[in-house]
């Protein structure tokens, strides 16, 4: 459901609560999917989504329509998801990724959360989990850009707007993410095939 931004801002000035309900109807599903793709757990994603919409409600008065409404909400969702992951991570490597741990770029904290993505079917779970665990080793913005482009189908320019950066930076993030993922996965398979 697409939201008419002009109509939304007019409604916001007259009835904040009604405007908020309209926003929930339009964005709950999209924001939930973004959060679940980043935190990979249904229950955690629900909590993050609630935090996102609480933040949206508290700062909705300051929204003046200069930025796109969707960009504004997505950036709140990304920041809240990052915040959540930072709280839930620790600097300890998973056993199956220890071979690649020597590179300084792999010193990223790894999520200790259980993989419970509701959008992944059982027959694909194992392979997807391996990929997602490797994605957890990426730098924060590489992971966000990769998730938004590859899973949610967002364009580079949309991602650039959400991350408040340039399209060329997103291209570079994606390039580095792909390279690092390939290296992580080949190291993982080499180690596990022996």
């Amino acid at each position: 459901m697409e939201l008419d931004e002009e109509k939304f801002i007019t409604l916001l000035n007259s009835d904040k609560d009604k405007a908020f309900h309209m926003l929930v109807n339009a964005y709950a599903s999209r924001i939930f999917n973004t959060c679940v793709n980043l935190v990979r757990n249904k229950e955690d994603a629900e909590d993050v989504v609630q935090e996102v919409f609480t933040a949206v409600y508290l700062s909705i008065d300051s929204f003046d329509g200069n930025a796109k409404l969707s960009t504004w909400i997505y950036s709140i969702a990304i920041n809240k998801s990052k915040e959540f992951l930072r709280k839930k991570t620790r600097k300890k490597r998973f056993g199956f990724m220890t071979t690649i741990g020597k590179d300084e770029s792999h010193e990223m904290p790894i999520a200790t959360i259980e993989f419970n993505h509701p959008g992944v079917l059982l027959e694909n779970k194992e392979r997807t989990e391996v990929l997602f665990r490797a994605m957890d080793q990426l730098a924060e913005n590489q992971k966000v850009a990769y998730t938004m482009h590859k899973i949610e189908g967002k364009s580079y320019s949309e991602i650039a707007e959400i991350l408040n950066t340039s399209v060329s930076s997103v291209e570079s993030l994606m390039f580095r993410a792909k390279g690092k993922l390939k290296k992580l996965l080949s190291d993982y398979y080499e180690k596990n095939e022996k």
Partner: protein
Amino acid sequence: MDKMESKLEKTLNAVKHVNRVEPSEHLKARLHAIPEGLKEAYDRVPKKVVWTVAASIAVLVLFNAFSLDQYTDSSQNTANQTQEESHFSYLKQL
């Protein structure tokens, strides 16, 4: 394409099998209840407490401003006094 490359390809393509998920009705209800919840939390704090805290902060700020003013005055007086003393001690030497 060797075995490893095909494995990598398959794993990287696993993102294509991640389906969209609809939020539960329970979550939607939780989200729609946010304005009410925040208002309730706001109303739960008695207005008397809010005004008492605000008045205490105002008194604290005023007290600090007054103390700072006093301190500036006293240090200025001390500086003037020292200057006068050194001036007269020089005259005395003459």
